[in-house]
């Protein structure tokens, strides 16, 4: 079981993130769970593109000619930036909600103004 340790880490992180998003009642903890899920998915995509004994795909003074696949790294770059944007937006929502309602408990934020 030690030869696919990255994939077992992905499964453990996905499980922790999913349990946190579903079962917690504080907005900040739910946001942390979303971040853990995002990290697990990024690790999964990068671990899919590994070749045994390969180096980084850069030709400037490279140690050998056997390189890992460059396409998953490009996809993960985009995904990390989108995670940053999501976290910034949810944090600003949490700040404005705390100012209006006095609490960040999602069971108590239920009124719609109209």
């Amino acid at each position, binding site marked *: *079981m030690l*030869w*696919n*340790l*990255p*994939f*077992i880490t*992905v*499964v453990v992180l*996905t*499980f922790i993130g*999913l*349990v946190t998003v579903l*079962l917690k009642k504080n907005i900040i903890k739910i946001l942390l769970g979303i971040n853990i899920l995002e990290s697990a998915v990024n690790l999964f995509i990068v*671990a*899919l*593109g*590994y*070749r*045994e004994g390969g180096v980084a*795909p*850069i*030709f*400037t003074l490279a140690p050998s000619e056997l*390189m890992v*696949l*460059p*396409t998953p*790294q*490009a*996809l993960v*770059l*985009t995904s990390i*930036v*989108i995670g*940053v*944007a*999501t976290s*910034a*937006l949810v944090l*600003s*929502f949490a*700040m*404005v909600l705390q100012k209006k309602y006095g609490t960040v408990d999602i069971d108590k934020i239920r009124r719609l*103004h109209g």
Partner: protein
Amino acid sequence: MKKMLVVGASLLIMAAFFGMIALNLTFGSPRLTDMDDYFLRHGQELTGSNNECTAVVFDFRGFDTLGESTVLFCAIVGVGLMFRKMQGGEEYEDE
């Protein structure tokens, strides 16, 4: 009490499902590498850069980077809209 039992049983089923997926994947030998072999072999003469990741991000897959820049821009405009000050001392928008 019953709610905790139902939640625990469903979490156990989810954990078993994920565990079966994790043990069946191989690490270190990807199966379909035709596109990336083409990128690695012809990337230097087509784009002229030494860094293959930057060449893939900005030249071979430039549309994804365009979409990502637009998403970042819209999220920052959204953060700027949340912290805006109302004019004339009113508190809600439709008063």
